[in-house]
């Protein structure tokens, strides 16, 4: 077992306590608010379920960063950041910071808020050996060493259990408005507008979120009016619970054909490829060569398979 230099080993009692709770043997998983609990498979029986620490450690608006414990709810985080005029790329759909990152869930407004996979600057997780591992860095730009934060996003806690993260924050634009129109086409919206924050379709109606300075939003709204009978609405439609991942081109064709493979109805995010449906997406296959690397990663990071047993990040070969 390697030993961290004293100067670098975290002395944070909260993280040390979390590492102690994770321990060094036996199957273990972290539960947040269980809003995405079945994603990636069913947890093996007899798995010890623990909670990650919670709380906002430090928000630095001038640096556009926030240090937050993984067990903090996204709602609490965003409420605190909003008081300083900022937000993150994490989705406002309930659950915890760690849960959203472990699943790798984008907000439906990712076009305007960046993808969740690039918002994570630094991660502190507890390894299968019960050690605290840090990767990435506290600054908004960093290419120091291998990029484990990217690997952790969407890994469903199968490589390490998230304890604390540093996220990039972004200013909340002065104005944010939703518009909707029946009969419009999302491709026309994407081609006409410069940078909408969201373009949604259910095959019949198109919803658009515009953000920015008021005169810019007015100008974009005027352009919208030139391609459909858009009217301001309170917000996006109610979203079905299951998330599908398609390509942006598939979403455009989905709008034309009006159906999702195997799903009855949907709200799809144009320009991104996310689709919300009442039906779960069938398991997706991955490239066999990719599956081999994934198996090696799991073996290298968690040789005894004790982290989130029963869950697999993504599809199978």
């Amino acid at each position, binding site marked *: 077992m*390697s030993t*961290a*230099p004293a100067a670098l*080993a975290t002395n944070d009692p909260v993280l040390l306590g979390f590492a102690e709770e994770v321990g060094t043997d036996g199957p273990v998983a972290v539960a947040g608010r269980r809003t995405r609990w079945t994603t990636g498979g069913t947890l093996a029986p007899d798995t010890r379920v623990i909670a990650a620490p919670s709380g906002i450690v430090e928000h630095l608006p*001038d*640096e*556009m960063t926030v240090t937050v414990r993984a067990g903090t709810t996204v709602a609490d985080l965003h409420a605190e950041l909003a008081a300083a*005029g900022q937000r993150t790329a994490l989705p406002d759909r309930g659950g915890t910071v760690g849960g959203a990152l472990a699943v790798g869930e984008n907000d439906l407004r990712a076009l305007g808020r960046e993808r969740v*996979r*690039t918002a994570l600057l630094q991660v502190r997780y507890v*390894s299968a050996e019960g050690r*605290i*591992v*840090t*990767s990435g*860095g506290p*600054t*908004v*730009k*960093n*290419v*120091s*060493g*291998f*990029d*484990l934060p*990217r*690997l952790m*996003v*969407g*890994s469903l806690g199968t*490589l*390490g259990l998230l304890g604390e993260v540093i996220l990039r924050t*972004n*200013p909340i634009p002065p104005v944010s408005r939703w518009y909707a129109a029946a009969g419009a086409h999302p491709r026309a919206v994407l081609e006409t507008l*410069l940078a909408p924050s969201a373009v949604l379709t259910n095959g019949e109606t198109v919803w658009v979120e515009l953000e*920015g*300075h008021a*005169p*810019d939003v007015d*100008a974009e709204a005027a352009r919208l009016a030139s391609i459909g009978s858009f009217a301001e609405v309170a917000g996006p439609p109610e979203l079905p619970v299951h998330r599908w*991942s*398609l*390509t*942006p*081109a*598939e979403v*455009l064709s989905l709008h034309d054909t009006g159906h999702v493979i195997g799903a009855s109805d949907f709200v799809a995010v144009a320009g991104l*490829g996310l689709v919300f449906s009442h039906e779960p997406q069938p398991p*997706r296959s991955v*490239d066999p*060569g*990719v599956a*081999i*690397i994934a198996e*090696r*990663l799991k073996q290298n*990071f968690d040789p005894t398979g004790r982290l989130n047993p029963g869950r697999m*990040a*993504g599809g199978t070969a």
Partner: protein
Amino acid sequence: MYRYAKLKNRVTRTLGIDAAEVESDPFVAELVDALSPDRVKQDGAHRALLSHDASVFDGGNSGPVVFPETTEEVAAVTRAAATHGRNVVPRGAGTGLAGGAIPLGVPVVVAVTRMNEIHEIDTDNGIAWVGPGVVNLDLTKHLAPIGYHFAPDPSSQQVCTIGGNVANNSGGPHCLAYGVTNAHIVAMEVVLPSGDVVMLGGLDAEPAGYDLRGAFVGSEGTLGITTKIAVRITKNRPEVRTLLLSFESVTDAANTVSGIIAAGIVPAALEVMDQRITVAVENYVNAGYPRDAAAVLLAEVDGLADGVDLDADRIAEIGRANGATAVKLAGSDTERALLWKGRKTAFGAIAQLAPDYYLHDTVVPRSKLAEVLTKTYEIADRYDLTIMNVFHAGDGNLHPLILFDARDEGVLEKVHAAGGEIITASLDAGGVLSGEHGIGVEKQKFMDRMFSSDDLDHQNRLRQAFDPGCRTNPGKVIPTGHSCADIQSLRSVPKEVWA
């Protein structure tokens, strides 16, 4: 002069190899079979040239150099290397500044510069499929007629390749608002060290499985070789405002940068140059920068007309509140282009002052910019070296530039010692080792200043999942003792291998 002399020595030395021995090398014969004789170079000149990159680091020792044109050829080269137990080093334009492309362990150098085709523009998916040898700026020029561009814009964008951008997770002035390369790479076809061809990432919103794409970007050529890349393309903004603010101190400029971000404005770019480099730039391209300002801030906002005017006015206000002595708005596209020409040719402008320079790259919190900049000047003074600062201030990415003449005895030691102190000052301020140049061989010895043994051990576990034999660009990033390959042994020529 310095570089030329080294190169000449190496050519002379390398030309001394026994040609018959080279020709009898079954590995080289297999490479020739896989490609064609004209695209497998084993002469001393090629091997000497590709033993270096744009860094100041020596010690590379290239084996045969190959110029594949297809994925199948890269796979064949990689399989042959695996069969013969030889190392592989991928290479783009060789513009890296951290020694990441220096070949260690007499590897076959896979130069992807002929894989320079723009395969497809797919606006429905918001991407372009490109070969790894496509030059960064060429893609943006290609996209211009349809109103798009490739957002990462490193200073070397006129020559650097997108494959190299992927390897280094490259940045550039406009990454402040648009993000570094990782945010713009959607999927990649990759030849693994085994020779297998895989697709990492995907065009869909949340590709299945671990984010191997994200882990690959910035891995400095140690995890495999990209052969085809889906890059995100970005719509050109219709309106751009570029402001030039002059200050009586670098501290005032740095405080203005913090003030702009604190005001909730994320400009497209925020670049600072100190007086020394500004004067050099003016002498070089006469771009319109003031020679008498202690520092200048180039601030650019883009978007729709009303919004950019509001942001530009606010930036001017914040600048004046922080002591700006002059605020000038570029009055035309020509004036704007000239200001950027000055900024992007800053490193070329140095040639008039000294024959050699060492460009550093660290990142500090924005609030510590002024403090760390002051320290860089103090460090240079102590070592009797000339230092200049030109940097991506918006994201705290410092680029201290130490000028020297390598013919001066002992100067390189001083340059490296001063550089080490700058890195230490950045880390002490809560910063990181590198913002965009990477670790390569340059900062390996500093990795344990930023990461614990456990941290480095986990980085190595990622490396080994892709490359269990540690044969792809060995001896880089992770320091000896943590890495699966021992650097010292890579400095010498392995037994049974010609060199």
